[in-house]
């Protein structure tokens, strides 16, 4: 009955007293398994499972404790996310939360992590406010945030004297993205001459594109997410022919296939399977192909894997102790291996600093979508976003 | 004594068609006036102007000396002009009792009471029952209005008007479709109200014997205009009325009566 709320705490203490706790560690994973972000949810889940396996060497055990994880579908609805998160915390008594696919769902769950004093690894939700204004100390994010994207985007194109216009959907994601980009780009000496925001649900973006063309920028930097995209119309309006170069973040493979018109574009990406050159990624690609009949890991698959690896790494360091306070101390500033190389949880806001990739979209034989080809890796330091909490 | 209901040059035009054409009448209190005229003469439209369903293009309507030309139907009903409809117009999914009770409730002025239970107004139900008895419909009081036969709906229509208990009653063909047997009963009701002597009644009907029997005066509408206005005898003598409205058979009939 009444002790439930503090049970997490007591358990932790017990863990400290007993020399060897063999209770399994439980992780609750929140992801969109239905609804608009279903595809992202699936990527995270696959990655997470593979990550656990990799990090524990296939034993699914750390410091003598088994790791179990329970997946819940948030349906991309905040109220469902809260319901499911509470269930995980209350009934399954999980030690960690991981998730979720949407920023809204994640934001709604943040206070629960604090209330129940459990670590939440945010993956792949991108809103800056998660590690910014809405931050609490139980939150760690393995995903990159909007600002990191923006900094990477800026790094890819911004130089002294370059005139840039931006196009973004008119909601938080787009607005956050552009303001972060602007800051980063201006720091690099570029000039933002026009910001265009479009109704994300619109069928027609030509007016917005027209307006950008009127400004005659050197670059058009596009922040976009969601199925309904402006690529076709950018091509139809002959933006590139007018000498305006396009730049944007490369999305997941399904969305890449709609970017045919942007071949030749320079931009950045969070992940594409052949960009990171390390053993972990190689393992990921191989295992993923093996298990999911030849499919490649996609945009957020390594993120899921990273979340698992961060947890295992932290537990290794505490020797299986899941006490949150202790974990927080351990994880702040912790560096750990991931398919994207080393990441580090920044002490101030628990944001994982990580590599991003400056790329160019190219047509490749035998691949039916434009492929992001590496121009250069942007180091974690280079893409570090400002601290905003 | 001043007129209770009066119109001055009342006209209404629907897209070029003048349905009521400069009609001026004056009905003294407690008077029984009938309106006759061919189909489409403008009788119902005239009623609509009196009861506020329509706003005239020209002219004025007065009730007890006050102009009410632009008043809403709601306000006119509250002021004391009640009407029944030619095409039956009831609340189909409420019971007969509930239909009439709504009229009683309005008459009693209980309009915005939202905190008390409606059952604390038992007297409404009793009154409603009285009215239903009067029109011989009390045995159907729990039936849904939409399940009534046509004639029964007509009776309900009348019961609702009576329950409003207004000073002026506008009756639009109350007995259309009512069975031979029951017309006299309804006639009786109307007659009783007339005899009470405190109600003004305006009646539209095509049943001439009924009109002759009840009316103090009769007005005749013709293509929207007032053709004649006078006592039953005067009207029956009017040749235009004879030929254009009553037709051959009826003149015999009228002569007999």
């Amino acid at each position, binding site marked *: 009955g009444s002790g439930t709320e503090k049970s997490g705490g007591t358990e932790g203490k017990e863990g400290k007293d007993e020399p060897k706790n063999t209770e399994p560690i439980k992780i609750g994973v929140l992801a969109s398994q239905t*609804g*608009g972000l*279903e*595809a992202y949810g*699936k990527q995270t889940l696959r990655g997470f499972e593979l990550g656990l396996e990799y990090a524990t060497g296939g034993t699914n055990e750390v410091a003598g404790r088994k790791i179990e994880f329970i997946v819940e579908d948030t349906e991309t609805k905040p109220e469902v996310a809260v319901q499911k998160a509470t269930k995980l915390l209350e009934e399954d008594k999980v030690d960690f939360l991981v998730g979720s696919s949407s920023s809204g769902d994640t934001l709604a769950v943040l206070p629960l992590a604090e209330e129940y004093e459990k670590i939440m690894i945010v993956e792949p939700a991108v809103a800056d406010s998660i590690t910014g204004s809405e931050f609490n100390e139980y939150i760690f994010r393995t995903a990159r945030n909007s600002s990191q994207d923006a900094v990477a985007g800026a790094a890819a194109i911004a130089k002294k004297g370059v005139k840039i216009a931006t196009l973004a959907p*008119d909601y938080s994601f787009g607005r956050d993205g552009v303001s972060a980009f602007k800051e980063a780009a201006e720091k690099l000496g570029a000039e933002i001459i026009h910001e*265009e*925001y*479009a*109704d994300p*649900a*619109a*069928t*027609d*973006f*030509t*007016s*917005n594109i*027209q*307006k950008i063309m*009127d400004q005659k920028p050197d670059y058009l930097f596009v922040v976009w997410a969601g*199925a*309904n*995209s*402006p*690529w*076709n*119309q950018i091509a*139809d*309006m*002959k933006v590139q022919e007018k000498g305006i170069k396009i730049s944007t973040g490369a999305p997941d493979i*399904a*969305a890449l*296939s*709609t970017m*045919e*018109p942007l071949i030749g574009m320079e931009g950045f990406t969070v992940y594409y399977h052949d960009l990171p050159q390390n053993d972990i990624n190689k393992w990921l690609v191989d295992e993923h192909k093996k298990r999911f009949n030849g499919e490649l890991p996609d945009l957020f698959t390594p993120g899921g894997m990273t979340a698992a690896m961060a947890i295992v790494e932290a537990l290794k360091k505490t020797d299986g102790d899941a006490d949150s306070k202790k974990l927080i101390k351990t994880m702040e500033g912790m560096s750990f291996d991931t398919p994207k190389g080393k990441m580090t949880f920044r002490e101030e806001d628990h944001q994982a600093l990580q590599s991003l990739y400056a790329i160019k979209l190219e047509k490749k034989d035998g691949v039916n*979508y434009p492929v992001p080809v590496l121009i250069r890796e942007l180091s974690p330091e280079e893409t570090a976003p400002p601290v905003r909490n | 004594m001043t007129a209770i209901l009066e119109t001055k040059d009342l006209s209404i035009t629907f897209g070029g068609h003048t349905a009521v054409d400069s009609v001026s009448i004056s009905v003294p209190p407690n008077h029984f006036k009938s309106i006759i005229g061919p189909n489409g003469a403008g009788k119902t439209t005239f009623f609509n102007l009196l009861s506020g369903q329509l706003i005239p293009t020209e002219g004025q309507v007065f009730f007890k000396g006050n102009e009410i030309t632009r008043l809403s139907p709601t306000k006119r009903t509250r002021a004391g002009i009640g009407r029944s409809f030619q095409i039956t117009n009831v609340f189909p999914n409420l019971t007969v009792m509930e239909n009439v009770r709504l009229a009683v409730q309005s008459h009693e002025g209980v309009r915005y009471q939202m905190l008390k239970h409606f059952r604390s107004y038992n007297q409404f139900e009793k009154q409603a029952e009285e009215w239903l008895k009067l029109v011989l419909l009390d045995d159907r009081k729990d039936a849904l209005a939409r399940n009534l036969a046509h004639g029964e709906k007509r009776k309900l229509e009348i019961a609702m008007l009576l329950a409003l208990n207004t000073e002026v009653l506008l009756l639009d063909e109350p007995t259309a479709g009512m069975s031979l047997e029951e017309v006299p009963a309804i006639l009786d009701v109307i007659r009783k109200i007339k005899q009470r002597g405190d109600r003004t009644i305006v009646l539209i009907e095509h049943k001439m014997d009924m009109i002759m029997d009840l009316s103090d005066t009769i007005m005749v509408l013709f293509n929207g205009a007032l053709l004649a206005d006078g006592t039953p005898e005067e009207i029956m003598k009017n040749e235009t009325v004879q030929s254009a409205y009553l037709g051959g058979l009826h003149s015999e009939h009228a002569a007999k009566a």
Partner: protein
Amino acid sequence: MDVLINLSLNGLATGMLIFLLAAGLTLIFGLMDVLNFAHGGLFAWGAYSGVWIYTSTGSFFAGIIGAILTGMVLGIVTERWIIKPVYGNHVQQILITLGLMLVLSEMLKVIWGPNQISAATPDYLSGSWEFGGIIIIKYRMFIIAVGFVVFLAVQYLLKRTKIGLVVRAGVMNKEMVQSLGINIQKVFMFVFMIGAGMAALGGMLLGPYSGVIYADMGMEFAILAFIVVVIGGMGSFTGSVMAAILVGLSGSFMAYYVPDLALAANMLLMAVVLIFRPQGLFGAKG
């Protein structure tokens, strides 16, 4: 000047596209008075089946025909099993068609997977011409043309045959229409089938417009279609075209001149129209 022409042309084309999306609903909702919330499902199915046929056969034309046929078959099934029991009852219509909508859009994911799918224009329709500053996108001209043809065809059907009258009469008084010797159920089924076919056509043509189709596209565009039918005036086919074009143009011009209100463009337009013309642009006075 160039800007004005570009904005107008693109607004017009978008309007025509919206018209194609809404045309089916004009019949089903405007004329037959069925609050069909599954309409979006019908055109999402049109889009998926059409694009699938196009990519597997390589013939855009086959894709169009395939989409229309898919829509018609779905229309018949829907009418027969879902709509028929609930004619004239809006409350039940809302519930049952929302249920159908869920089934339809989830089935898409079962068959074609949850990922968005890219939808390309055929070569002969892709690209654009440029005259001075005026850019004419080929596919948009194609949409305008198709919209025009569909408009004329349906207008012919409604004006030259009794079908429009019979449907309107049937909605007002089904029993009476039957008493006049008309098999109204068959007529309703036919009209519903045509409406569903047009919805599917609209969906199919939408794909290449933005380059991508996805399972949830249905609900998004269905609301737009409802807006068009209502502000055009229920049951008025001309009204729907005009409303659609108005929506297209206002979207285009507002995005350019008052971008801050662009998000609210459709809702503002609808509010303004309905406050000043409560029966819709071409609706008979109620």
